[in-house]
């Protein structure tokens, strides 16, 4: 328990002191979404139909941008090796790091998304499922991203590589996330896609830290 608190506290304060990193992701999210009305035209009806997809694609891309720093800094200054050698299970350490990553990227994205949805003229009935799908979906991105970040650690062009590897795996999140919002905006119950997202989240919590830990151990061996 103590170890969890220490790691989360350390990572959080690292992000806070760097400051701009988490902020850049949020700005990227807003800027990407802003491009869509300029690209497809400002017609409110078209935007209303596209809103769910635009917000989710923007969130996915923005989260991708932040993934490579999950382990990169620790890898560069050597603290990753100490974390791996520490007596605590590496899976737990990874889970803590994912939580911090979500707190500093997924959570701000989720809080920002209703505002962007408003600008895209999303139907008012869809907001609840938008928040719900973001709350369940963005942690999955952090968990899957940890797998990708561990895989590309130490490679050339790791930032591009991680996007190439992780985007195909995030497609289910996009599908169910958008399905939930669509159901909400058409007045149906969004519970089925949200339950699928929840199931994916639990799967990822169980599997991703384990796979990430395996990859990280290869890095230092």
């Amino acid at each position, binding site marked *: 328990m103590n170890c969890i608190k220490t790691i989360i506290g350390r990572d959080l304060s690292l992000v806070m002191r760097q400051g701009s990193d988490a902020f850049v992701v949020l700005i990227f999210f807003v800027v990407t979404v802003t491009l869509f009305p300029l690209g497809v035209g400002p017609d409110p009806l078209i935007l209303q139909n596209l809103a769910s997809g635009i917000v989710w694609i923007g969130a996915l891309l923005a989260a991708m941008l932040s993934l490579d720093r999950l382990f990169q800094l620790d890898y560069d200054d050597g603290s990753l090796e100490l974390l791996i050698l520490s007596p605590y299970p590496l899976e737990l350490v990874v889970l803590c790091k994912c939580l911090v990553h979500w707190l500093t990227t997924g959570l701000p994205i989720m809080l920002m998304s209703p505002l962007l949805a408003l600008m895209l003229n999303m139907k008012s009935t869809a907001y609840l499922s938008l928040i719900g799908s973001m709350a369940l979906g963005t942690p999955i991105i952090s968990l899957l991203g940890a*797998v990708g970040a561990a*895989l*590309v650690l*130490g*490679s*050339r*062009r*790791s930032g591009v*590589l991680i996007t*190439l*590897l992780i*985007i*195909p*795996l995030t*497609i289910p999140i996009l599908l169910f996330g958008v399905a939930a919002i669509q159901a909400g905006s058409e007045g149906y119950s969004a519970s089925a896609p949200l339950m699928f997202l929840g199931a994916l989240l639990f799967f990822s919590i169980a599997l991703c830290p384990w*796979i990430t830990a*395996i*990859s990280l151990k*290869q*890095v230092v061996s």
Partner: protein
Amino acid sequence: MPNIVHKFANPARFMRMADPVLPWLSLGAVVSITLALYFGIFASPADYQQGETVRIMYVHVPAAWMALFTYTTMALASGAFLIWKHPLADLSAQAAAPVGAAFTAIALITGSLWGQPMWGTWWVWDARLTSVLILFFLYLGYMALVNGFDDPERGSKMGAILALVGFVNVPIIKFSVDWWNTLHQPASISRLDAPAVDPSMLLPLLLMAVGFKLFFISILILRIKMHLLKKRIRSIQMID
């Protein structure tokens, strides 16, 4: 089990065993693909609904099977590599990846050429097509990751883990036509009852499948040999 695994892990023994069978495998591939083309183009009837375009099937379906088969091979080989540190398993996974990507590309392109006259569109975003496209991306991602490290050992380990993670897509592709209502037709060959294809069409289809598989194995052996030689060159260069 580990005994058998280790017995075949010796590259020199692999070379000794592979060299004599390679010409026969390649010959078998050439013969069965030629026969399949003959039966497919000249000796099989046109479909009563699809006309002559049905002949695209004789390339499209076997290529799609191979796309899945190759990825499964890669995942199995990667698993063997991670569990037993089997050096040849790693090489065969790496050797198979470009071949699998090529089969996937062939399946996608022929499917698109077939879709234009039949469905009236080059591409639809249905579950089968999309999941095969993702399979193509997974192949590309695997190759990029394996080649993305300065240390080739690291690349192969990380690639092996990715190949196993990406395997989730294979059952999704296989069952995509059953789980979702797609424009793509459901399976006609691997069904519990008899295949829903006439024997005159089944013959070239299966011949082509056998030919593709033999072609895959021969080119796999060639590529593994290439990787082994590359490894040897690298170690010679390191001594200098």
